[in-house]
């Protein structure tokens, strides 16, 4: 992929992740009591429901902030990948052991079935990983001012 196209692709993908994380985080914060109650119902994380109900949206907003600032985007994609990997693992666990319980995800995403959610998460996990690799490789290409011979 050409560097310019790569930069545009990274811009669009990071905007997509910002949209996803800010949307789910604000939905969780707007409906915090419901979110906490749903987390309490989950056999895996019930004991940590109170802490997680604050920690998860804060982590999502922090990741969105990293993605918003171009110089921190590499770390943003890495954090996105780790977060999405954890969420995917959680969804897989719920499908295997507690399919009847509701999803604790924010907004309209909670309307998805567990299987749809797993596919959605796998897609975004893969996208985060590819984007992270792209941002690392992007480092190999730097723009140089022709006259001054310095990076721009």
């Amino acid at each position, binding site marked *: 992929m050409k560097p310019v196209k790569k930069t545009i692709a990274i*811009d*669009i993908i*990071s*905007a*997509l992740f*910002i*949209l*996803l*994380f*800010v*949307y789910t985080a*604000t*939905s969780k914060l*707007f*409906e915090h*009591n*419901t979110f*906490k*109650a*749903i987390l*309490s*119902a989950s*056999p895996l994380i*019930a004991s940590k*429901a*109170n802490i997680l109900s604050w920690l998860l949206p804060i982590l999502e907003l922090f990741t*969105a902030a990293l*993605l*918003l*600032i*171009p110089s921190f985007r590499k770390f943003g994609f890495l954090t996105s990948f780790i977060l999405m990997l954890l969420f995917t693992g959680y969804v897989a666990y719920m499908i295997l052991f507690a399919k*009847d*319980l*509701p999803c604790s995800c*924010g*907004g*309209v995403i909670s309307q998805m079935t567990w299987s749809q959610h797993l596919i959605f998460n796998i897609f975004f996990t893969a996208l985060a990983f590819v984007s992270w690799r792209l941002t690392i490789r992007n480092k190999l290409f730097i723009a140089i001012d022709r006259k001054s011979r310095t990076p721009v």
Partner: protein
Amino acid sequence: MKKYFLGIIAVLLAVGFSAFTNIKAKPESTDLYWFQISNKYTQTQMVKQADATFLQQSATAPLGSGCFTGIYDCVAGFTANQVNSSNQLIDNSQVPTSVPRTKSN
């Protein structure tokens, strides 16, 4: 500023969508499932299924019985996600969403 443009648009869209979906969901979410709680549970403790007797589903809490003031749950409200189709708590690990009436013993 140009390099932040897409990101800022994404943030604004996300907050807008989020506020919109939550406002739409509001009328349904105000109804809680109210239960009379036996035994001693503080507001942050998980209530056992056997200790919660279904009273009604409404936006406001019923009076319940034996409620005065104290630190233990007397009438507690749970969301639809915490209650099964037989109007029982789904398991023994549900924390009340609202505890408007308490008791001392």
